[in-house]
């Protein structure tokens, strides 16, 4: 489980390698959290993985301050407050170990631009607090960021990779089109988190297949139980001789219903629990890889 915790940081740092050297980020982005990142909703205060943007901002600041630092793994991450209130206070906390970032899954949603780890739009996208909540409205402060001249050489190479399916081919020199500003012209719901959308799509396919296989398993086992036990009264009615048949000194109905039914039910239950656990295991492994 915990090994998977490195997934977010890995993709974060790959983004930051290309991007975080930007020296002059607009002040609002650094100081105040974007409007989308409000206080968490009450119900699911601990479900949402929204520490990632905070983490990212902090990482970003750190790298701006100290550009020579190599892009690190989780070791460089500050681990100050891990409490429940850390988020609300604005203190960072380590990302959840079991959170798989949306951009770790490569399947794009409908209408989304294919995402690569270098896709800069990922950085400030806001993860929805509650998976059940509706998409947030557009973030007002999303404005094009003009890159300073200094960073240009750094950013230039990854640009083609950043927009492989973009509308216009980007020449190495036109960095205004490259960074962040592209959101404005697009209709796709960027700030409602492209990445969440994407997990939804993937998740929908995966989860519906999980649910279907679990349901099929449950129906199969339940069917075996109902058909086996349910056929008994009819059999006793149709073949009355069964009711008088003796086995091990017991009449067949007494033996079947009074004794054997329980191990039978137990065996079915055990089989189901094992198979269902295995299905979940496969699902979880699939998701996390």
């Amino acid at each position, binding site marked *: *489980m915990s090994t998977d915790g490195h997934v977010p940081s890995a993709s974060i740092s790959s983004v930051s390698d290309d991007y975080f050297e930007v020296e002059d980020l607009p002040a609002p982005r650094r100081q105040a959290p974007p409007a989308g990142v409000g206080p968490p909703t009450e119900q699911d205060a*601990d479900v949402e993985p929204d520490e990632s943007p905070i983490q990212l901002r902090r990482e970003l600041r750190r790298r701006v301050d100290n550009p020579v630092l190599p892009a690190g793994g989780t070791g460089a991450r500050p681990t100050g407050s*891990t409490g429940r209130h850390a988020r609300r206070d604005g203190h960072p906390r380590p990302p959840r170990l079991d959170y798989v970032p949306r951009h770790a899954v490569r399947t794009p949603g409908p209408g989304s631009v294919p995402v690569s780890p270098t896709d800069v739009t990922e950085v400030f996208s806001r993860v929805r607090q509650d998976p059940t909540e509706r998409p947030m409205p557009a973030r007002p402060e999303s404005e094009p960021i003009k890159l300073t001249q200094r960073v240009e050489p750094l950013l230039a190479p990854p640009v083609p990779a950043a927009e492989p399916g973009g509308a216009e081919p980007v020449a190495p020199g036109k960095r205004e089109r490259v960074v962040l500003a592209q959101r404005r012209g697009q209709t796709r719901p960027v700030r409602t988190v492209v990445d969440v959308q994407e997990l939804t799509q993937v998740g929908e396919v995966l989860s519906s297949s999980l649910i279907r296989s679990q349901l099929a398993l449950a129906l199969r086992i339940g069917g075996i139980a109902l058909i086996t036990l*349910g056929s008994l009264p009819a059999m006793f009615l149709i073949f009355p001789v069964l009711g008088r048949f003796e086995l091990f000194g017991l009449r067949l109905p007494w033996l079947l219903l009074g004794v054997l039914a329980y191990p039978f039910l137990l065996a079915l239950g055990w089989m189901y*629990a094992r198979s269902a656990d295995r299905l*979940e295991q496969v699902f979880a492994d699939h998701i996390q890889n």
Partner: protein
Amino acid sequence: MTPAAVVALSCIAIVAVASTVIGSFGVRFARSTSDFLVASRTVGPTANAGAISGEYLSAASFLSIAGSILKFGPDALWYPVGFTAGYLGLLLFVSAPLRRSGAYTVPDFAEFRLRSPAVQRVCTILVIVIGWMYLLPQLQGAGLTVATVVPTLPSWSGMVAAGVVVIATVVFGGMRSITFVQAFQFWLKFTALALPAVILLIYVGNNHQPFNRPAPPQFPADTTVNIKTDVVLRVTQPVVFQASGTLDGTQTYGLVTWYPGRHTVMKGAQLNFTAGTSVPVPDGAPVRDSSWLTPLSAESNYQLFGIYSLIVALFLGTMGLPHVLVRFYTNPDGRATRRTTVVVLAMLGAFYLLPTLLGALSRLYVPQLLVSGNTDAAILLLPTAALGGGPLPTLLAGLVAAGAWAAFLSTSSGLVVGVAGVLSTSPALFPRGGVRDFRVAAVIAGLVPLGLALVAARLDFSQTVSLAFAVAASTFCPLLVLGIWWSGLTDRGAVAGLLVGGVSSAGAVSLSLVGVAPGGWAGMLLNRPALITVPAAFLTMTVVSMLTRKRLLPDVPRLLLRLHAPERLGLSQDRTRRFG
């Protein structure tokens, strides 16, 4: 009062006082819901399974299965098989997803899945109805137990005592909060039946009359039967006995001879049979021992329908019982929930072997219960009837009585807690919803069924309990199953299905409980409505949901994913274990 009565009453008193005292200790350990939850998460599958079984094994399981077997033979075996199979249904369709939803009761689940106050309200009402229906036989069973072990006490005294103990336990502590108490209750009940069963097998062995005789059972000793409710009996051989009271419509004193046919005995009669006389059996039950041994032997044309309806009700109804669902929340995660349920299957299977055995033996030793109609008392009377009146049988009888009380108390406390929890959190009744309100609600939740128990007709407990199962199967089962597995369920559909299933099944059930029992099809339908009402509820819920597809919540796939995804993906709701 005889020494046997004193022993039995003392055993009952010990159990009652112990539950109250331990319950009040529980307050110190579990002050709040979250205390309860967090503490409970440390409970392993085996202990939790013991607690679930302990809460589940009620008067119906402990007393009435043996009584039904005494009366109906192998057809009654469907009760214990169904009670166990219900946990298979729960395991297959509900347990892990419900645990992952974080819902604590069915109304909570409805709120989680459909976010509709209307559904929540309907569910609340249904929880209360099912809980009270289930409480009814528990309290009546307490009354029967007291009246059986101490014949001089009226049965209402036992009901009132049980009601007071249960309410006190819940108000002063909430026994539910301590898992090990419930687990202990399971082992107490198990011992209370296992010990008599083993001793009976050792003492009696095979030295008993053969079961397979083409004749009615015989009184093993001179027996006096007091008839407490009007009864229709059937004899196939001439029976001669002393009687006083109204028999077949005429006031009778002295020697009576009954010829083959049906005979009516009115309340208050006293019948004296000598040893070896054939036992008259209640109308509808198999008369001869040999036919009692075979299935489908009752003289009814609809018994196949009845059996299938019972199977449906028990298989699908268990998942809707309020006191069962609450317990599953104490598991750490969905996987442990499944394992717990499997252990429950094992425990119930082991337990139900005992009433089966004792029920069969009671056909030989306490057949007089067939005459009085009090077959539910079979297990209570069996030890002394089979082993004589020595100190050992007296102690065994006391142990059985104590086990029966443990059965009522644990089940009733669970139910009262469940009903009171739902009552006290419903804003219409208790706007504040604090601990005080919970206590007031607990008193209401206990007093109402107590009043009902005092006035309602007493059916066999297994019958009353299966009526509650039928209502649960016709309402909560469709809601849970469709809500967990089908993304198309809408709030309108849920309400419609709940109303159709609830009104039809609860209507049939209350007619049965009031004592309106027409013969033939109608009577069978009223007594065993599940085979009709469950499909009706499923169908209504599905069709109405499809008609109101516009009301689907936009994030249903997400909700379903959360229900089914394993916890390690972090989609589940309660995370206090990791981050708390």
